[in-house]
């Protein structure tokens, strides 16, 4: 666990980590951006200098990069944590979320929401990654149930589902659905692959 100490000015001071503490999932600051360690490899010639070759994901850009550290070096930790939050609404510029426990609200920009926006329906719970309290990544639920707002209705009789057809969902996402799916129906979609799973069951 990351522990934030309080300095004399009352500001949070992040812990720093030595290369010996490097492991998958550790959040560190690199060139001003919060990053998450994916892989850490210890490299050392028998009679020479030891290094840590690290594969890192920049949490702001999503890009994966490599970095070599001298073993024993320290790097600043990043105040990053993930939390489940309820998606409230978007005003077109920001997407607003609420912590269901504290009712605190945060707003995420386009960069943080990115592709997730097309799967998000108001009231859905999303996984929000906060850096210094502000959202940098928003992930939709793994499965969402969304209404079909538009699809070609003129293909009756074929229920095999082979091939399928595009359908536009209420959030604007377009997925391939079997031919029998009609406008107004609710379907279940896997947001990781963007694929149709089934018709939503009536509860």
């Amino acid at each position: 666990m990351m522990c934030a100490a309080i300095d004399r000015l009352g500001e949070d001071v992040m812990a720093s980590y030595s290369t010996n503490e490097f492991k998958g999932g550790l959040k560190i600051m690199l060139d001003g951006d919060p990053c998450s360690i994916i892989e850490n490899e210890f490299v050392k010639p028998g009679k020479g200098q030891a290094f840590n070759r690290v594969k890192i994901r920049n949490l702001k850009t999503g890009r994966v990069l490599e970095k070599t550290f001298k073993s024993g070096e320290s790097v600043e930790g990043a105040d990053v944590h993930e939390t489940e939050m309820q998606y409230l609404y978007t005003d077109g510029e920001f997407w607003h979320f609420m912590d269901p426990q504290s009712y605190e609200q945060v707003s995420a920009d386009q960069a943080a929401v990115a592709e997730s926006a097309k799967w998000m329906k108001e009231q859905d719970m999303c996984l929000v990654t906060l850096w210094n309290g502000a959202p940098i990544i928003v992930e939709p639920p793994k499965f969402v149930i969304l209404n079909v707002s538009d699809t070609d209705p003129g293909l009756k009789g074929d229920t095999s589902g082979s091939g399928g057809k595009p359908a536009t969902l209420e959030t604007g996402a377009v997925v391939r659905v079997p031919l029998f799916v009609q406008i107004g129906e609710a379907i279940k979609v896997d947001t990781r692959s963007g694929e149709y799973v089934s018709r939503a069951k009536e509860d």
Partner: protein
Amino acid sequence: MTATDEWQPSAAVETIRARAEMLARIRQFFNRIGVLEVETPICSRYATTDPALESFSVRYTGPGAARGRDLYLHTSPEFAMKRLLAAGSGPIYQICKVFRNGEYGSRHNPEFSLLEWYRPGLDYHQLMDEVAQLINGLSGHPHTLEKVSYAALLAQHLDLDPHSADTARLRQCAITRGIPGAERLALENRDGWLDLLMSHLIEPRLGQGGMTFVYDYPASQAALARIRKESTPVAERFELYMEGIEIANGFQELTSAEEQRRRFKDDSHRRRESHQTAVPMDQNLLAALAAGLPDCSGVALGLDRLLLVLTGVADIRRVVTFDLNRA
């Protein structure tokens, strides 16, 4: 890994068998060529001063040391084996566990198995050939054999002269060749940069499908090797690489007690500068060298890594029965 499967070995049973087979064949090999198997203490009152190595320490208390005495686990059996050589043992080998603090990863475990042997009368080039013979015998088929000097290797891969390039030139090379983060690395000296270049850009390409011996290292990386005084002095040292992995390190052994003492002192000085633990230099080795070490070559070969290559396993934790996290 969860607590519930932690009791299980990290190596498969067939790998454990392959190790037993390898050890038996190594003993046959040395028996056949007349090299004597020896044992030396794992715990010593002295430690290696090499700044690249950190010794574990333990404490003995009891008869002979009522108030306790610090002992160091050996990082290789080199010092004690040289004392045997100086005492007239003739050619000797040892298979033992050695211990190096701070080293753990896919190719490192803080305790590992080393095969070390010494050949009075053979020079280091002859010893490279013997290493190749042993390994070809173990794998049952001949490997391609490549020998290249450290200087030729760096000229070939990086267009650098490792004996003359200064720190700025080496650093620039690391940056232009795209070692990520090289520009912000604070390395202490030329050798640090050479190690960076070797380990990141060259090593992974060495010994692919065969054996690559690299020899004649920069004098500053001599460790316990003799330095050949030429216009550019070089350390008569070699390393063996297979499948991009460092397997063995050998020397034309330094026999001068005076030079050895100077290197111990230089090492100790460097340890102090980089705030490493101070360790006592081995007075018994110095005394043995003063008494006379026969001209010899010696080599230390990492058996776990050799087993990786022989079995095609990717991670050292899969060839030891219980790695650090299960020990």
